[in-house]
């Protein structure tokens, strides 16, 4: 802003002015058509009764009223909360344990690299291939891994139908094992950036492993932990790919989350208007969560010190 005065005397030729816009043009067009337009359309559609007949009528807040009257809602909200909170907590915990183990206790060891590469595999292989394994582990017939193990050890002779008994647990297990790696990479890198001297100084002072972890490692992880919390939580609240592939929301509605419900209402039952209204609720929840976590982790406080160090 300081050179605003010098800019006034020199008038940029038109070709130079549009120049930057040429660079972002394709991006801007795509974002407009496939992001801004759908966002507006979602809002508009949520106030209509658009369905298979494809003739939308404005219905005001009927869809939103319907959501709150929907007898499925309590269970779906509960599923969403359980799925998101448990997935987030467990995957974060494991990401933390694995990154501390490989970057602190086994730092620089070949085994550390092997563990990390193995953990990355679930997130590398395509989802459709990945879920097959979990379908096999919890297969309700005697072919399934768990059932055949239980049979072999004589725990239970009849095959257990896991998907009817513990569908949500299966979905969560499959989800966390594939998301741990994302958090692990970020946390590992943060731990890796801690200078070796700090550990040595701590050791000289006779610090225990516990205090090294709580006093040196964990404080440096605040920033990546915030990033992971927000992005993974939004991911868990809004995306339903694994659930769709694993159980498709069933049995009954046991694993239907809010965003999967929106999808089903729109594309299975053709209630596009109602589905859009449910999507809007998902967006609203995501934004509230984001704001909440930014507040909780004291976003502004964290930005300042890093700027001074630069």
């Amino acid at each position: 802003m300081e050179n605003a005065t010098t800019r006034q005397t020199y008038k940029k030729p038109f070709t130079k002015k549009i120049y930057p816009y040429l660079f972002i043009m394709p991006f801007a067009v795509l974002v407009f058509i496939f992001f801004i337009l759908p966002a507006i359309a979602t809002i508009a559609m949520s106030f209509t009764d658009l369905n298979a007949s494809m003739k939308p009528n404005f219905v005001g807040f009927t869809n939103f009223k319907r959501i709150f009257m929907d007898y499925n809602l309590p269970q779906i909200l509960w599923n969403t909360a359980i799925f998101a909170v448990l997935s987030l907590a467990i995957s974060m915990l494991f990401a933390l344990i694995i990154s501390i183990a490989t970057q602190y206790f086994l730092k620089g060891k070949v085994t550390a690299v092997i563990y990390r590469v193995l953990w990355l595999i679930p997130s590398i292989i395509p989802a459709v291939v990945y879920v097959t394994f979990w379908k096999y582990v919890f297969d309700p017939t005697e072919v399934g891994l768990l059932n055949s193990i239980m049979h072999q050890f004589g725990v239970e002779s009849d095959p257990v139908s896991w998907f009817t008994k513990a569908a949500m647990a299966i979905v969560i297990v499959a989800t966390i094992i594939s998301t741990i790696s994302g958090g692990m990479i970020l946390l590992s890198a943060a731990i890796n950036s801690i200078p070796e001297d700090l550990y040595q100084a701590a050791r000289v002072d006779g610090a225990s492993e516990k205090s090294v972890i709580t006093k040196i490692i964990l404080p440096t992880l605040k920033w990546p932990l915030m990033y992971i919390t927000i992005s993974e939580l939004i991911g868990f609240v809004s995306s339903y790919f694994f659930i769709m592939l694993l159980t498709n929301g069933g049995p009954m509605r046991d694993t239907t989350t809010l965003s999967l419900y929106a999808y089903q209402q729109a594309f299975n039952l053709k209630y596009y208007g109602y589905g859009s209204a449910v999507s809007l609720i998902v967006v609203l929840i995501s934004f509230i969560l984001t704001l909440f976590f930014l507040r909780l982790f004291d976003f502004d406080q964290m930005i300042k010190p890093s700027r001074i160090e630069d």
Partner: protein
Amino acid sequence: MMSTGTLKKLLVHTYMTLFTLPIIAMIIWYFLAATMNFTTGQFSMENFSFFGKPVEYAGVKLPLIWPIVLNTIVYSFLIVAIEVCISVPTAYAFARLDFRGKRATMKFLFLMRSFPGITLIIATFFILVQMNLVNTYLGVLLVAITGSLPGRVYIMKGFFDEVPWDIEWAAMVDGCTRFSAFKKVLVPYVLPGIGAIAVFSFLGAYGEWFLFKLLIFNDDMLTLAGYLSKLVTKENNIINYGLITAIGLFYTLPIVVFYIFTQKIFMKVNLGGAKQV
């Protein structure tokens, strides 16, 4: 007598091995299930007969796999090419050029990255219907690209930010225009970043099944992920794991090999994405 140090290492290894067991089991299972006949307990390659004839399985009839393989390759490389061609100039503009609305656009980019994009899919579907792009590759391509662009631009911007301004000034002094400095000096400088987003784009495109499920109705237009999802989502208990794991292995092995070679880039991409939060 074991020292506490070794004991600690042993403990760490024990826990890590236990944690990693599901993944090891998974890898072993894929190979065994695909190559073993479980009734006779012998090695067999009969599950791989899908190479020669169309797959028919539990009432699902699918076309021969080779055209699907071709679709997958073409689709993945198109995605990589387009995403790179769009995100590199955009990131350059954000990092290096001044224009009105830049700050607002940057903020919007940040918003987009944390926006649950999947919630827009119903409206996106309608826009595609209006544009007559349902059941076309173009529709899938455009939606897929828009979804991943914000992330790519952010990563790329991080790479451009790290290029010293001196380099660009020097090039301009030597008679380059802004654009030729971008092309001849900056782009070569950020090649590692371009490689990184290319790997990311490729892996994303290769695994894409949802958009194909939603937008493509012809089985012979599917890519491998959509092809396999037709077999996987049939029921909870899969009848023929042999066939599915065989196709799965054929589908996954190339990218695992690819991934092992590009692993370093992959780690860097994730970091680049997070550092600029």
